[in-house]
């Protein structure tokens, strides 16, 4: 009999198996986040905000205090919590639509104000929950329900480079990185550093995670990994983009 892989301690067993589709990357991002929370021993102090979209399915994912919000509005809810009680460790969890489209004013203004929160944005290149529409992160030429002939950059522009934009407008003290579900150890490292950055009171922390959506991509396992590892990384460079004390690139 095989032994099931160990779940992070802060995961809520009663809500497992989780509600995401088979092959979805959310479970992996939340695993990396859960392990980071465990390693820092902050389960009791975490306030986890779940955006609307597939992210909302994480509303009872952790044994951490959690609040579901509205589409795009998790950043301000979590900001409000942190401003009123700075002792809490506040995490806003959202998708690419929530962060870069409907909630972009919140994400970028929270970043500009250097709010002491962590925003985790799961980038799977389209709107999952609503059925696979084009998102700000949809790749050029990528077919979605609202770009059935492929994303036309003349009409819809290029994919949003979220972490690069956040890095450009944040002051020193911010932590910005892009990880991927194809490299969980690295992603967990980014999330842990980002949480530590908040706890140190340095500034805004932002981690984008490249993720998978085989349901809407209509891909098998091999094609799914090929897309996240080869296609997405053509536009979205994985790595640490900004950390406190680092000099800005000229």
């Amino acid at each position, binding site marked *: 009999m095989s032994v099931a892989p160990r779940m992070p301690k802060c995961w*809520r067993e009663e809500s497992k198996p989780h509600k995401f589709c088979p092959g979805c990357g959310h479970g992996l991002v939340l695993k990396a986040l859960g392990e980071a929370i465990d390693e820092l021993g902050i*389960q*009791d*102090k975490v*306030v986890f905000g779940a955006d*609307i979209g597939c992210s*909302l399915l994480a*509303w*009872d994912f*952790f*044994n*951490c*205090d*959690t*609040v*579901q*919000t*509205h589409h795009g*509005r998790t950043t*301000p*809810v*979590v*900001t*409000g*919590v*942190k*401003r*009123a*009680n700075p*002792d*809490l460790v506040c995490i806003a969890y959202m998708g690419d639509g929530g962060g870069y489209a409907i909630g972009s*004013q*919140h994400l970028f*203004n929270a970043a500009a104000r250097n709010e002491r929160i962590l925003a985790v944005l799961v980038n799977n290149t389209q709107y999952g929950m609503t059925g696979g529409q084009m998102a700000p992160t949809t790749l050029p030429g990528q077919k979605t329900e609202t770009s059935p002939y492929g994303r036309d950059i003349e009409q819809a522009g290029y994919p949003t480079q979220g972490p690069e934009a956040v890095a450009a407008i944040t002051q020193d003290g911010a932590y910005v990185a892009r990880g991927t579900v194809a490299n969980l150890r690295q992603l967990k490292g980014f999330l842990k550093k980002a949480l530590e950055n908040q706890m140190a009171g340095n500034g805004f922390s932002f981690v984008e995670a490249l993720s998978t959506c085989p349901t809407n991509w209509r891909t098998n396992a091999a094609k799914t990994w090929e897309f996240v590892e080869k296609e997405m990384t053509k536009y979205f460079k994985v790595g640490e983009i900004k950390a406190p004390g680092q000099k800005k690139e000229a």
Partner: protein
Amino acid sequence: MAEKPIQGERKAFLTGNEVVAYAAVAGEADIMYGYPITPQNEIMHYWTRMAPKYGKRFLQTEDELSAGFTTLGGVLSGAKAFTATAGPGNTLMQEPMSMAEMMRIPAVFVIQQRGGPSTATVIYSQQEVTMTTYGGNGEGFRVVYSTATHQDLFDYTIKAFNTAWKYRFPTFVLGDGYQAKMRESVTIYDPQARGIELIKPTPYLGKPGSIGKDREVTHMRNTYNTEEELYEVVMSMAKEYDSVAPEIVEFDAREVDDAEIVIVSHGVVSRAALSAMLELRGAGYKVGYFRPVTLRPFPGDQLRKVADNAKRLLVVESALGQFNKLVQTNIYGSAATIDTIFKPGVGVTSEEIVAKIKATL
């Protein structure tokens, strides 16, 4: 750090926005989140001047969506949090307000009505009645106090925090640009010195203690999977709202027992209505006065009795019938006839009301 902004009580000559800021400090609000829009700006101006002296905080957000949602975040962490807005800002803020309804988050919103639709005027109206009472995608599970004087602004801003935290419904102080910008005398006081107990807030999220050992984890949701599941949630909320409504309802009725016509109005317009009633009574006309202080819940039973008795109402408002819709819905079935003075976005004088009644009585 100074302990209390107001010791005992004193007379003051202030603008309405200043009064709201004083009341929020006196009512022990912890944090304000806000975004500039006329005519509520000075609430933020006075709050930001006073707040640091009393260990209170302020965050200026990027828009009213954010002001509303950060306010909800503040409440969730256990702070008495509030925001203020008007007009198009009120429109945007309906989104966080609907979340406050669904999740029973006791946020306090101060609305200083301006002209509408759209950007319209920055000055005055009573055109945000429908939106403030029933806005958002919901059923209007909220408490709305419509103020008429600066004393009301002070009293009901303090009361709004208590109502919100006692019943856990979002609570509104509905003023207007005239009240916001006008200066008049008001008695400001330390509520505790008057025996008003201020309800202490408690956190929803991030309570002290260790999860699974000395406290339960909290998972707050506003999304449901089936129609039936949602139905149960909404109906239980409706039941609770209806059961506490009689405790919350407030109104002012004068000279209604023998009245042949009763002037029905709310907010600042009720001051003109009161003057008109007194003047007409002095001249021998049998005129009454009815003013709902709470527009949600609405004093429907009380008004129906008055309407059945007088058989004639004159509904007066600075909107094109938004308040009248509440009146008609609540007295449905009454045989009383309704005359109206509707002046959307424009003030109403007692002379107009007197002339209208003299012409029709």
